[in-house]
């Protein structure tokens, strides 16, 4: 426990940081210090979150480090778990190893092909199903039957269906992202405000223009939700498929590391998958903001 003068001193410093810095609001061009102070006031919440975030990550690394260096066994066994430093060492080795980069590159290629195909098929299909009742009535029951089957359950079937291993893995990735994109596009179409359609008709828009100028942009926010979810499921499906039937890819790398008792590489593979997943969802978000400027404030 702190003694009382110390506690008072601490309270004083807290109070100090809480009072906003004095800013001269004179109209004449503000000094750099004043501008900096204002920027600080406006962004204080964000700076705080950033600072706490960094501290929290460092704490996580510290706990990981301690658990592994002391080989803690608390029912969960950290005996063979690699320490952060060991993982860092293997990362240092891996980024100079063309084979590791090839693993990553191939996984990215599979995602790119599988996910792009899914988007190219599912978005137009969803738009058409949302607009034309017959298309919905024909396709929806089939989609509903196939949708609950996890992409991983398709692995044996995919191997039978496609001539090469590579194609079957891409197919699994495609399947994983297909249904989230389709379902969200359909949802977006169902929420299009009928008043906007009528407004367009009153301004002389025909079916095709209404589709392009109203239904499509109105559904875009939900389409992008579908793409984000679809991208997540695509990675899940890809990693599982690579672990089962791959010869290359970051999922295969991670599984192989376990088989070859390269424990630091397991964690390295996991972290790489996390970073790739995060990166791809950031890309989708960025594209979304670019395509929908009216949504960014």
């Amino acid at each position, binding site marked *: 426990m702190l003694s009382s003068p110390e506690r008072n001193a601490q309270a004083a410093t807290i109070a100090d940081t809480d009072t906003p810095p004095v800013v001269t609001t004179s109209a004449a061009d503000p000094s750099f210090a004043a501008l900096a102070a204002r920027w600080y006031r406006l962004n204080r919440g964000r700076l705080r979150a950033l600072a706490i975030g960094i501290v929290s990550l460092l704490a996580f690394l510290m706990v990981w480090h301690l658990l592994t260096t002391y080989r803690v066994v608390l029912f969960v066994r950290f005996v063979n778990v690699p320490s952060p430093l060991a993982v860092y060492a293997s990362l240092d080795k891996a980024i100079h190893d063309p084979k590791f980069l090839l693993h990553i590159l191939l996984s990215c290629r599979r995602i790119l092909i599988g996910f792009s195909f899914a988007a190219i098929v599912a978005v137009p299909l969803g738009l058409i199903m949302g607009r034309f009742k017959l298309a919905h009535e024909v396709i929806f029951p089939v989609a509903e039957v196939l949708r609950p089957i996890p992409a991983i359950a398709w692995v044996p079937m995919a191997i039978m269906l496609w001539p090469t291993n590579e194609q079957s893995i891409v197919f699994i990735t495609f399947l994983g992202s297909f249904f989230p994109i389709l379902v969200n596009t359909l949802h977006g179409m169902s929420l299009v405000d009928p008043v906007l359609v*009528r*407004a367009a008709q*009153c*301004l*002389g828009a025909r079916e095709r223009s209404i589709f392009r100028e*109203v239904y499509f942009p109105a559904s875009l926010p939900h389409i992008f939700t579908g793409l984000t979810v679809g991208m997540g499921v695509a990675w899940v499906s890809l990693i599982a498929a690579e672990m089962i039937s791959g010869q290359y890819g970051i999922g295969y790398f991670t599984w192989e590391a376990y088989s070859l008792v390269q424990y630091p590489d397991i964690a390295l593979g996991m972290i790489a998958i996390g970073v790739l997943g995060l990166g791809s969802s950031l890309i989708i978000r960025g594209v979304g903001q670019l395509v929908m*400027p009216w949504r960014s404030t």
Partner: protein
Amino acid sequence: MSETATRGLRGHIEVKNFSLSYESIDGAVQAVTDTQIHVRPGEFVSIVGPSGCGKSTLLNAVAGFLKPSTGIVTVDGERVNGPSAERGMVFQQYSLFPWKTVRENVEFGLKMRGMPRSQRERAARTLLGLAGLEAFEKHYPEKLSGGMKQRVGIVRALATGPKVLLLDEPFGALDAQTRVIMQQILTNMWQRLKISVLFVTHDIDEAIFLSDRVYCMTARPGSVKAEIPIPLERPRQQSMMMTSEFLALRRGLMSLIREESLKAMGGEISDLGMQGLNIDLHGQSLAEVL
């Protein structure tokens, strides 16, 4: 604006022997029955009536969204069968395209007509200037106030040079002060363009202030109960709303509508209100039941 000169001759709306019913689980529902209305070229006509009387139904039929069960709707002798840019419409829900900027919204009708980009940009800027919105041309609708949104909605509907302008309670969602300003703006625009206007509202003051003629509708099934000419001089000023002439018109319309509103609520009133909520307590006291 060479079109303005000829526009005065266009825009004759005629609704003859109009009725509209639709199927429901309880059988056919008669929304509007045996209605005749007309709007002469360049005239400002309002339809008022109790809620649910079918005034919006009538307007939607003129717009071409609903087909009459019997009767006929014509504009300049041509039968209406489907929406078109010849009949501009302003909706109560603002109905601006959120993904288009203010200018792109105004340009939309011209784009549909195939006008080249630079030409329609210029036209949209001019129109926005008339409505005092040129500073907001690059804004998205979300950032605008309700009154500004509705001004853009009116400008958008006028951009294609329609024969008639249809407005479905356009100021219903605005606060009282904004509504008064919007009414002034609308009359100014109407006087400048001399376009035929059919205006649906439940606000009696608004109908009198804006119109040359007011149709008052009956409760459901709706039909025309009365047709009231508004002989107030133009241009209309806000101060006119205090004149005895205005107030007399207001009193007349008010009593017509009250009669119909009571009729519309008749069922509920006789069942509950008039009988004073007789609840059979089966001989127990209220406290016991509760």
